[in-house]
Every structure is written in structure tokens, then in C-alpha cells.
């Protein structure tokens, strides 16, 4: 009885876990059959020995991975092939004696081959056994190699998590000189409508990941995200999607850093577009995000990102457009307003890093304008921190400045006895006012002081010859002149004595009187 039990135990131990290679197995016709979930033991009989294993996958879809323990003298190269011996992936990450790993190999029901060979011509270790472990897991939410080109992209489920690896460090089957290893994913949005797509790729220690989005029609790169450094996540926010549509996502490591042990996780989120966020890509006039609400948020990512917003002014009477851009940590934001052809009209770069920007009332009537948000150095980017751009359109009233009045040709009309409120903003602003004196009179023009600005006021005759110039004693001081003027047309130019001074918060009041 005891002997029978011992024999039965021995059989059961032999049956589970380990398989031995059956030489000769150096060709697919005599490959050793193995099943996933087992460890295969074998030896390299000579430096030129090749061991071929036939893997029979018994399920519809799965992800195969392996671990090959290194042995002395042998520099392993593993080739993963399909049933027709077409090589799908090749692994050679380590040198002589090193372990080799293979991960994320997409398989379907049927046969595959693993061919082990040696690169070291001096290898002479026929006695030591290597162990090759094979694992098969579910393909749900997994990268499926080979996915090294757009045509072989893995499928990604939007709204879920997909796991993959920045591995191997090189695509040894690539014909290009750099043999870049990259992972392509196909994103499918089946629903109709406008959506915002958010994509988060988790960090992998030591790996500086780059994420790119391509269209499927022409494989044009639409967006690239590389905001962070090694060991940090990459985040894409507010990518505008007009469903139904497909996009391609390309992930790669910027250097040859790779990790077979730590996967990246891609988390995708598809949200209905509410018009309160930017609709990327909006990097040029033609792709500008419609800015219909009172405020909109966006992010500066990648470095050099420029976000265009379209502002449609529908009504004919004159209006004043005001824009406010909130500060973002680590960034010096610049706000530019463009006309309908994309020519810059106003550049608001009054403040420094981590400070808000404001464009005080720009005079507009019906037409299209663009607000463009960018980062001054074009080097900063952060997809985790968003800015808020707010706008207001108010009716213009007489007595208010109507920019642009920065030139003699655009001088704002004012009559003797009237006043006008305006801003010395943005930096370098000059406000021109034009008035008529119908009969000789003592004319007084005075301007209230503005905080942080030393005012300079110049009077010109109708041929724009300078008649007089006055300046405030110091910042915040008012300025004025009084002079007898003959009948004629005159212009007054008001600006900061120092072009760098400006004030977007406090208005001046300019008053024109006659005695």
C-alpha cells in the first residue's frame, strides 16, 4: 500500500510544473510541445544549438509571457513566431548569462513557436540546465504585441484601463537604424457627438514616456504629449473627439529605458463635451475651439502649445471685449487677441510667471475674433494644471475708451466738455484722442493718476507736429496741461512714460474743457 502511494505521488509530481526538451528540437518540425503554465528545462548543447518549442494555445485570445533563466556562457536570443514561422517578436535584452523576459505577446487559439538560440560563439556549457517559464493570461485590458506599427495596433477600450509595458528596449525586427520600440493602440469611439477624451499613462520608474495621437485617415500626428520626465506619468486632457471616429495612440520610451516588471496603465475617460473646456487639437486658427460661454478651461501641453479660441461677435453695435486669464503654477502665460484672419491685434503679456493676464476692453463690432493662450518661454507644459479664460462682452457707451486707439489713424474722437475713461494697458499702450477747437479758447486737458504708471501726455496739432509734452511727477500722479489753442483739429497721446508700465485694473479719466 505504501509503495503504491509513493508511486502515485511520484507520477503526480512529474506531471505538474516541469517539462524537458526532447532533442533534437532545432527545427519547427521537431519542436518540443509545451503548454503555458509550465516550466521547460533544457540545455544548450553547443554554441550553435537552437531549441524550438511549440506552444499550443487552447483559448481564443490570450497574452503569453515568458521568463528564461540565464546560464553561464550563453547569451540567449528568443524568437517568437506564429504557426507559419513568421517572426513576431525578438527578445535579447541581456548579455551573456543574463535572464531574458518576454511580455504582452498577443495570441489566439492555435500554434506558436519559441526558438531559443545563443549569440556567444565561445559558449560551452552543455551541462547546465536553463528554465523557461511560460504564462498565459487573459487579453482583457492588455497590450497585445506585436503592436509596433499603426497597422498592428492593439485595441483599446475607451473608459477602461489598458496595461502594457515599455518593453523590450528595442524592436529588433525593425528595419530602421534606431530600432525604436513603440506601442500602438487603436481608440474606437462608437457614439455620435462631441466628446472630450482624457488619457492618463501611469509612470514607470526610469522611463520617460511619450504619448502621441494620430488620425487613422492619413496617419497624421495630431497631438503629442511629453510634459513630464522619467518616472512620471503622461496626461492628455480635453482631446476633442467628434464621434463616431477612430484614433491611434502611440507610446514609446524617449530613451532605451524599459521595464518588463513594471507595467504602464492607460486610463481613458470619454466625457460629453460641454463647451467649457478646450477642444484639442486647437493649435491653429482653423481648429479654434468655439468660445461661447463666459469661461473656458484648457491646459498648456506639450511645450509650445498654443490654444486658439474663436469668439463670434454677433451684433452690430459697438461692444467692448474683455478677457481675463487666470494664473497657472510654473507658467508665464501670454494672451493674444487676433482678428478674423489671424493677425495679432493685442498682446497681453503684462505680468510675469504665475500671474494672471487681462486684456481690457477691446472695441469690437460684429465679426470673428480669436483669443490665443500660450506660454511665454514655450518650454513649460503641464497637463495636470489648467488655466481658466473668462470673457465678457459689454455694450460700448460714449465716455469709454474704444481700443484700438493706438495710432493717429485710429484716434478716438472726443469733444470739448467731454471725458473718457480708459486703461494704460497692455504694456506699450498709447491712447490717442482727437478733438476740434472751433474758436480760439483756453483748453485744459487733465488725466487722473493711475497706480504704478507714470503718465506722459503729448499734444499735437492737425499736422501732428508736437506742441507740448507733460509727464506726471511720479507713478500714480495725475497729468494735465492748459493752453490757448486756435481753431483747428488737435490730437492728444496718453501713454506710460516707461513702456513697461501698465495697469489693467484702474482706469484713468481724461477730461477736456475750455474757458
Amino acid at each position, binding site marked *: 500500500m505504501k509503495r503504491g502511494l509513493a508511486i502515485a505521488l511520484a507520477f503526480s509530481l512529474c506531471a505538474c510544473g516541469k517539462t524537458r526538451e526532447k532533442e533534437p528540437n532545432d527545427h519547427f518540425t521537431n519542436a518540443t510541445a509545451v503548454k503555458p503554465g509550465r516550466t521547460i528545462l533544457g540545455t544548450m548543447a553547443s554554441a550553435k544549438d537552437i531549441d524550438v518549442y511549440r506552444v499550443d494555445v487552447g483559448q481564443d485570445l490570450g497574452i503569453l509571457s515568458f521568463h528564461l533563466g540565464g546560464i553561464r556562457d550563453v547569451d540567449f536570443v528568443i524568437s517568437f513566431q506564429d504557426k507559419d514561422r513568421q517572426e513576431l517578436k525578438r527578445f535579447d535584452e541581456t548579455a551573456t548569462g543574463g535572464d531574458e523576459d518576454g511580455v504582452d505577446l498577443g495570441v489566439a487559439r492555435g500554434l506558436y513557436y519559441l526558438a531559443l538560440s545563443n549569440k556567444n560563439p565561445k559558449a560551452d556549457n552543455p551541462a547546465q540546465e536553463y528554465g523557461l517559464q511560460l504564462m498565459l493570461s487573459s487579453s482583457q485590458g492588455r497590450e497585445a504585441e506585436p503592436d509596433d506599427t499603426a497597422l498592428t495596433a492593439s485595441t483599446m477600450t475607451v473608459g477602461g484601463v489598458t496595461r502594457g509595458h515599455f518593453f523590450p528596449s528595442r524592436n529588433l525586427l525593425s528595419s530602421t537604424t534606431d530600432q525604436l520600440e513603440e506601442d500602438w493602440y487603436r481608440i474606437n469611439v462608437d457614439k455620435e457627438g462631441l466628446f472630450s477624451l482624457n488619457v492618463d499613462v501611469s509612470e514607470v520608474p526610469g522611463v520617460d514616456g511619450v504619448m502621441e495621437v494620430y488620425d487613422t485617415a492619413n496617419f497624421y500626428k495630431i497631438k503629442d504629449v511629453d510634459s513630464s520626465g522619467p518616472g512620471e506619468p503622461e496626461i492628455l486632457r480635453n482631446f476633442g473627439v467628434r464621434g463616431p471616429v477612430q484614433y491611434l495612440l502611440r507610446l514609446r520610451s524617449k530613451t532605451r529605458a524599459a521595464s518588463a516588471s513594471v507595467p504602464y496603465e492607460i486610463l481613458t475617460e470619454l466625457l460629453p463635451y460641454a463647451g467649457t473646456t478646450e477642444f484639442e487639437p486647437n493649435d491653429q486658427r482653423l481648429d479654434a475651439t468655439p468660445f461661447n460661454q463666459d469661461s473656458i478651461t484648457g491646459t498648456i501641453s506639450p511645450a509650445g502649445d498654443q490654444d486658439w479660441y474663436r469668439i463670434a461677435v454677433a451684433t452690430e453695435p459697438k461692444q467692448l471685449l474683455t478677457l481675463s486669464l487666470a494664473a497657472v503654477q510654473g507658467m508665464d502665460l501670454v494672451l493674444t487677441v487676433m482678428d478674423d484672419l489671424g493677425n495679432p491685434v493685442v498682446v497681453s503679456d503684462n505680468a510675469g510667471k504665475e500671474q494672471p493676464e487681462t486684456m481690457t476692453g477691446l472695441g469690437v463690432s460684429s465679426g470673428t475674433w480669436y483669443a490665443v493662450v500660450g506660454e511665454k518661454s514655450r518650454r513649460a507644459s503641464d497637463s495636470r494644471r489648467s488655466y481658466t479664460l473668462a470673457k465678457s462682452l459689454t455694450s460700448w457707451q460714449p465716455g469709454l475708451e474704444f481700443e484700438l486707439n493706438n495710432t493717429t489713424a485710429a484716434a478716438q474722437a472726443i469733444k470739448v466738455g467731454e471725458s473718457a475713461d480708459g486703461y494704460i494697458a497692455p504694456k506699450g499702450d498709447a491712447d490717442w484722442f482727437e478733438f*476740434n477747437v472751433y474758436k480760439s479758447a483756453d483748453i485744459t486737458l487733465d488725466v487722473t493718476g493711475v497706480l504704478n504708471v507714470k503718465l506722459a501726455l503729448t499734444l499735437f496739432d*492737425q499736422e501732428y507736429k508736437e506742441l507740448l509734452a507733460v509727464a506726471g511727477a511720479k507713478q500714480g500722479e495725475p497729468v494735465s496741461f492748459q493752453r490757448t489753442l*486756435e*481753431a483747428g483739429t488737435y490730437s492728444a497721446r496718453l501713454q506710460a512714460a516707461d513702456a513697461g508700465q501698465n495697469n489693467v485694473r484702474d482706469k484713468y479719466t481724461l477730461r477736456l474743457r475750455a474757458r
Partner: protein
Amino acid sequence: MRPLPRGGALLAGAALLAPLLLGACATQKVVTPPVVISPKSVPEANFELATFEVVENPEEDTVSFVKVFVDGEAAGQTQAGPKSSEKRWQSRLTAGNRLVRLEAWAVSPSGEAQLAAGDIQPRERFVRVEEGQRTKVSLKFYDKGRKNSLQVAREPMP
């Protein structure tokens, strides 16, 4: 009355029908472009106004003209013509700093003259007229007529 011979009857019928047929074919309106009248040349004019508008498409190129007021009194007007064409007015004015007001008018398809809206009219301003010099005022309308720019130049009289 002698009856017409057979051939003559056919001809007579055709003659009766022809106007009807021609009338039926005349379904397409023929649009005659406005006649551009050359401005009256004023001998020894020392003041000249030239005005035109930048139009974005042919549909906007309707007829317009500008009236000129000097020192509060009507002094004349340019010829009427398409907005994009240059319209002129010349006169001999007394030297001095003259208050000039230019008034933009549009001509409707029916030929009725309509004063343009007040907020797009050029501002009145003083223009100096000097002895021995011809003062040339150039008035340009743009941005669908919402904006205008005025330039004054002088050259010696020929």
C-alpha cells in the same frame, strides 16, 4: 380686301407671333452697371478730395458718393459710382484752416440716395488750405464701411 396668298399668310402670322415669342424669351433681367461720370474739372482747384471703399465681394460694390461741407456749408459732392471706384471732388477754396465735414451717402437700386449711419460717418476736422499749394484729402472706407481713414497731403500748385 384681297386675301393674302398662302406664303403671305404664313409671313403675316409669324409677324404677329414674333413679338410674343420675343417677350417670352425676355425672362432674364439685364443689369446695367451704373454709369461712372467723370468729375467736373475745376480750373486751378487748390482742394481735392478722393474717396473710395475697400469691398470684399462684388455684391457689396453698390453705388455711393460723398457730400462735402466746408465751414458748415454745402460745398459740393463727388460723382456717384461703385464704392470701390475712386470718386473725386475739386474746388478752389480760400486759404486758411477750413472746417471740412464729409458725408457718406449710398444710392439704392431704385436710385434713391440714403445717408449712411451716423456712427460710421467720418469725423469733421480742420484742413489747412495754403496759398500756392494744392491740398489733397484722401478718404478710405474699409471693414464693410465701418471704419475710415483720412489723410491730408499738400503739393505745389502746377
